[in-house]
């Protein structure tokens, strides 16, 4: 990672965060009682899951006949949903693997959630082939293995079978990647917890101590998995595109399918990441970690991939004309002007036209626009698969069998099941693991924190030469910091260490570093300074009520802090009783 940061780069972590603030802000949602929005979300998800589960049972009990599939259109919502979910999963791997290889720092804000989304989306997708058999107790027919079925092997010539291999490989690697990233963070959670909770996290963090060797192995493993995951992202959706390009109807295909499906998958995946993270950052108050910069970057990717998909759509149409091949021409005529013209229209407007709004910076940085468009994009990407399947099948070579298809409530219900499942899993994930990769965000703090880069950076960092050295030194400290944190099991100690360095960096001045007091960060220090409190002695002589008033006035973000011990701590600092203060701080947790 480059230690020198170009001036034009915007900060990716706001709010003058220290390492401790990062741990605190990201881990605390898993340690508190869930707020009302989480409970509302969970109830809603479980309701969807229950209704969908009923529809699934209904399907299995009465058979696939409860769906509206017919002889002509043998694939309907099921494979549409399947591919849609697979596509959504792609953003996770792109963010975690490809952006890691490209050293994109903004990935750290969203990679954890996106990777989790990948896992959950693939789980949702994987259900459909099983459901589509209609008799799930025969699902083992899908797997090739030496058997007594004699010549009844799976069809190795079929891309549908390749899909089984591709997706199971993809799922495995994505899961490993996600879990590898989680290990240090689970260790952080372990170190912050007690009792049964500690035992559980201890088990899942694999005895991570944060030793240098651990970090070294962790980094090489991440890179190896990234190297494996990158071709897998391509292969999975390539094979999904083969499903359509080779199997929908004989004689019809377009060769551009593989790369454009990959682009489309990333397109829909990013849209889903945005839909989820815009809510998550609000509910869990993570706006300073998932900043407008992150949102804008993702919107640019949506614009890019949406336009790539647009080029592909137009190329297909154009080549259908150019080829002079009547079957190809007929397929595309049907899409645009056939009985399913409305779905083609929906696909074109949602996937090609709607992302074009993101040419405007104002819209790229608008939460409301982004949220609405992210949903529009995913509607469009659903329609893309529907268009490819239903319109192509509806008008095959035999006009007497032409047909039209619309789903029954049962099919819709099975789709809803996956929403319920996806949301339930995601909400559980938010409770048990940090939704942002703590260690990875820390690794970019010194090069992307707003106290180091950007217009609000602290004055003393503007001296370029000086900046080079300090930042280079500090980047190295990042790993060390977390190492201490995990090995000692007491995060407070680490933070004191880090903040001691702050003093070294800070220019000598008349005022004391109030951040020495456990619970005071740079922002609160600023508030206290504004209130006329500059030294430890002053703070020691201030009444707790007064500090509370200052915090209350500053808004809800600060109201949660409990300054009860601050004057006492400040007194110790002012008296130079560092050892005692440190010992006491070890017992305190976040100043509470």
């Amino acid at each position, binding site marked *: *990672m*480059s*230690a*020198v*940061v*170009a*001036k*034009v*780069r915007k900060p990716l972590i706001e709010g003058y965060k220290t390492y401790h603030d990062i741990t605190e802000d990201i881990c605390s949602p898993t340690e508190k009682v869930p707020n009302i929005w989480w409970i509302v979300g969970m109830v809603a998800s479980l309701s969807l899951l229950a209704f969908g589960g009923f529809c699934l049972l209904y399907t299995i009990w009465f058979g696939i006949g409860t769906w509206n599939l017919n002889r002509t259109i043998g694939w309907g919502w099921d494979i549409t949903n399947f591919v849609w979910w697979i596509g959504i999963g792609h953003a996770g791997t792109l963010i975690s693997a490809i952006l890691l*290889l490209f050293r994109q720092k903004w990935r750290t804000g969203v990679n954890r959630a996106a990777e989790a989304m990948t896992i959950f989306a693939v789980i949702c997708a994987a259900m459909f082939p099983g459901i589509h058999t209609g008799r799930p107790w025969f699902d083992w027919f899908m797997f090739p293995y030496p058997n007594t079925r004699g010549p009844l092997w799976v069809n190795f010539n079929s891309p549908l079978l390749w899909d089984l291999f591709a997706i199971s490989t993809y799922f495995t690697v994505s899961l490993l990647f996600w879990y590898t990233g989680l290990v240090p963070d689970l260790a952080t959670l372990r170190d912050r917890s007690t009792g049964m909770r500690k035992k559980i996290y201890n088990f899942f963090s694999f005895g991570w101590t944060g030793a240098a060797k651990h970090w070294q192995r962790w980094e090489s493993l991440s890179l190896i998995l990234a190297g494996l995951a990158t*071709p897998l992202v*391509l292969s999975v959706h*390539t094979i999904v595109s*083969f499903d359509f*390009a*080779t199997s929908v109807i*004989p*004689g*019809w*295909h*377009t*060769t*551009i*399918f*593989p*790369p454009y499906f990959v682009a489309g998958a990333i397109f829909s995946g990013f849209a889903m990441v945005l839909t989820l993270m815009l809510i998550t950052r609000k509910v869990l108050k993570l706006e300073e970690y998932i900043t407008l910069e992150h949102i804008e970057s993702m919107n*640019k990717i949506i614009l*890019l991939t949406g*336009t*790539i998909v647009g*080029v*592909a759509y*137009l*190329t*297909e149409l*154009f*080549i259908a004309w*150019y*080829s*002079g*091949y*009547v*079957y190809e021409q007929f397929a595309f005529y049907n899409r645009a002007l056939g009985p399913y013209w409305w779905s083609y229209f929906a696909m074109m407007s949602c996937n090609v036209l709607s992302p074009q709004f993101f*040419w405007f910076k104002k819209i790229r940085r608008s939460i409301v626009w982004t949220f609405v468009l992210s949903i529009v994009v995913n509607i469009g990407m659903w329609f893309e698969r529907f268009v490819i399947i239903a319109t192509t099948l509806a008008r095959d*070579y035999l006009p007497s069998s032409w047909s039209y298809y619309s789903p029954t409530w049962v099919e819709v219900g099975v789709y809803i099941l996956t929403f319920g499942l996806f949301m339930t899993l995601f909400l559980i994930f938010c409770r048990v693991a940090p939704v942002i990769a703590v260690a990875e965000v820390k690794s970019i703090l010194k090069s992307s924190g707003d106290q180091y880069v*950007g*217009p609000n950076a602290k004055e003393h960092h503007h001296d*370029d030469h000086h900046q*080079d050295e300090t930042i280079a030194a500090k980047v190295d400290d990042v790993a060390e910091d977390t190492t201490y944190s995990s090995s000692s099991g007491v995060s407070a100690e680490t933070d004191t260490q880090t903040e001691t360095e702050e003093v070294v960096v800070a220019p000598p001045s008349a005022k004391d570093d109030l951040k020495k007091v456990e619970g005071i960060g740079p922002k609160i220090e600023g508030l206290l300074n504004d209130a006329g409190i500059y030294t430890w002695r002053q703070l020691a002589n201030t009444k707790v009520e007064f500090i509370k008033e200052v915090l209350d006035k500053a808004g809800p973000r600060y109201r949660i802090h409990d300054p009860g011990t601050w004057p006492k701590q400040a007194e110790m600092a002012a008296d130079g009783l560092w050892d005692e203060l440190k010992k006491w701080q070890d017992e305190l947790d976040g100043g509470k």
Partner: protein
Amino acid sequence: MNNNFTFTGSQRTLTFALMAIGLLALLFGVFTSPEGTHQARVWSNILHNTAFFMGIAFISTFLIACKISAYSGWHTNFKRILEAFSMFLPIGLLLVLIIVAGLWTGSHHLYHWAADGITDPNSANYDSIIDGKSKLLNPIMYTVGTLGIIGLWTFFAFKFRSLSVSEDKDDHGVGKHEGSSYWRSSKVWAAIFLPVGGFLSPFVILWLIMSIDSHWYSTMFFWYTSASWLVTAVAFTILFIIYLKSLGHLQQVSDEHLHDLGKYLFGFSVFWTYLWFSQFMLIWYANVGEETIYFHTRTRQFPVLFYGNLIMNFALPFLILVANSTKRMYGIMTFMAVLLIFGHWIDFFQMIKPGVYEGLHHHSHDHGDGHGSIIDLDGKPVNVSKYQKDGEPVLVQNDHGHDHKDGKTHNHDHDHGDGKAHNHDHGDGHHHAGDGHDHEGKDAHGHDHGAHDAHGKDKGHDHGHGEHAAHGHDDGHHGGGHGDHGAGGFEMGYHLPGFIEIGMFLGFLGLFLYVVFTALSRASLIPVNDTYHDESTHHHV
């Protein structure tokens, strides 16, 4: 540290020498060209090299726009090299103008769609499929389209270049959070260029290259071609960095930059292979006769090009560049860059030459063969399913049971009624021969060495289908009198690049180097006022 490159006399001599070689090769080609070929060999060489080098310039411009849009910082210290490549675009425009002039004057017959009477229903030459494309494939659209689009690209290339160079003399943006006005302006132009390049490049590729095989089409072809340019541009960048460093320039470009460019070379080679495979796989699997004929021709008649392409552009770079250490070794990187430049030049060779070769034979043996008939590997015309014969679709079907087995079907049409189709069914033997690829590849290696006496041996390799192979070769289709080859005819300049091709390549290379050196000498090599300059200097440090 020397920040300015001077285009020295010896470099000038080198580029002029290369250009002279090219000119000699061209003249030699013109004077030795067989009668009735309309100088197809020389013209196709001009087209081949024009497409290749113009494309490098285009993709470099595109890469510049990508880098600006993506806030890429690491490449800044060698961005002048990419800019210098992009400066070849106006020359590319002139070269395309030559091809356009040849098209209008009828000097070359590279494009079958430009043949006389091809869109005239009353002509014996009439071809309904080409007629259907004639709104796009006609000299006017070709001229306006190619020149207009490449002209537009040239404008953007100059825009990026001038914004970048102007910044050298004006440091008002250094150390500013909002960057310089040049940088901000180039971001806007880059954002506009991305869709311009992305949407328009397919047309240029279609006119210049894909329309040579006038019947054939593939939606993937445009991205595939662009990927080939991309690898080549990265390879040239690596060569220039290594060369300039050897002259003592570009000291701020480190092993880290080279390593990352090596990753690009590896990654884009794999990407190219991915696109190659996707296109091949889908065409092979779908088995639509109109499309498979393209690969059928290449695997059977041009096996050295077909497999050589994959070996040079996938197997070797994959195996050699996959290791970390090789990407930091100057010798290996130089070798790989040279290999991939040549490899992708061969890739364009195999995109262009087989179609030209067929067109040539098509024209010279036009005795009642229907349009749409294609020379089979024995030099026999095989009528590819003429589903559109009377404006009425005829279902594509496989007439030959054994064809189903290996999926290498060509749909032979038994309808003699139109007086166009000549069905030479004894050509079928070759449809069995899906398992014979390797052997045919080896056979053709024999041809490399001009071993025309090895025919008997060729047949021996033919997996027991020798009796089928023996049916062929009786039409004397192949000019030059060597019509009797196991894997089709061989003609230097089409099946393999000969001295004329290599010579002309060197000539174009000389021209390209001349333009690049000139552009490099006109601005400082390191853009010190660039907002990312420090970042690039400290790349990975």
